[in-house]
């Protein structure tokens, strides 16, 4: 599947453009709902509008991006499914995840200042999330270590799986420990069928989650393609360097 799958990354340009248009449309609807249509919350006031960014970016980073990274890493480590495509998918997804996890922390901090009175507190949810950020920054650093690409990819896959252990800890941190962060409003066993956010606010959050999910899919299409182009360009650079070295050696031999 290696060659076919990697070549498949290059195809589907029309679908990606449609996905991009749908993402832009959903993002525009999200901004309209979040900033204009949706009402202010009785306790939080207008700062509740920040949650229409904070929650979807957290969903995108924690569950979607790092979930895909872990799945792709596992598929890469499994000998029967090993393919360079899975390594590229894992790296692209982790990079997007780190960007959106950074935004989750930053927007959460901006929300926390008017609501909690502090920019940051060493709360279990916040601390475990900060640890995850550092872990995936480490993962991205491991991917840049020079050497045999197969060895680097294997090491990175192991780091990705180890880092993902923190995700269930983050999810459960508001239940297991005394936390200033509120419990889950939707993704919880007892609240899945009885969400704590309803009406226009619930609709805005739902639309925002869909918009950010589409954004993730669109970004992944482009980022995996870039990774594939980088890999091919790197291979061509190596081949060109080898040809040049051979030519130099032949010239030196004649002399």
């Amino acid at each position, binding site marked *: 599947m290696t060659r076919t799958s990697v070549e498949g990354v290059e195809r589907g340009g029309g679908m990606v453009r449609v996905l991009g248009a749908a993402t832009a449309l959903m993002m525009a609807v999200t*901004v309209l709902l979040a*900033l204009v249509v949706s009402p202010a919350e009785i306790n939080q*006031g*207008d*700062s509740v*509008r*920040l949650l229409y*960014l*904070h929650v979807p*970016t957290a969903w995108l980073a924690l569950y979607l991006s790092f979930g895909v990274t872990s799945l792709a890493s596992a598929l890469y480590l499994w000998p029967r499914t090993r393919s360079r495509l899975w390594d590229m998918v894992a790296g692209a997804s982790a990079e997007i995840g780190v*960007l959106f996890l*950074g*935004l989750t922390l*930053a*927007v959460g901090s*901006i*929300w926390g*200042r*008017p609501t909690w009175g502090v920019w940051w507190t060493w709360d279990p949810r916040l601390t475990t999330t900060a640890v995850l950020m550092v872990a995936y920054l480490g993962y991205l650093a491991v991917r840049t270590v020079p050497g045999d690409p197969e060895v680097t990819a294997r090491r990175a896959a192991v780091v990705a799986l180890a880092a993902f252990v923190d995700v269930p800890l983050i999810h459960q941190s508001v239940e297991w420990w005394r936390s200033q962060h509120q419990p889950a409003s939707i993704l919880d066993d007892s609240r899945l069928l009885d969400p704590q956010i309803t009406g226009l606010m619930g609709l805005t959050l739902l639309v925002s989650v869909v918009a950010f999910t589409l*954004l993730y899919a669109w*970004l992944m299409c*482009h*980022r995996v*393609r*870039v990774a594939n*182009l*980088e890999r*091919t*360009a790197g291979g*061509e650079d190596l081949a060109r360097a080898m040809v040049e070295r051979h030519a130099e050696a032949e010239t030196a031999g004649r002399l």
Partner: protein
Amino acid sequence: MTHAAYVAAGYGLTAGAVGAYVIWVLRRERVLSARMGGNAAAAGADSVAARTPVDSAGADR
């Protein structure tokens, strides 16, 4: 700061960061695609030169 200012800061930061990343990815994709296209054209030209009776080595002789 008013709540509106915090909201503006949050949305501005998100739009800026996502926008910058999108621009970086699309620009890198375009640069690499153009480079690969150029290499493919050069490779095509090389293969044509290899089939041509008078190449650079022939000119030296």
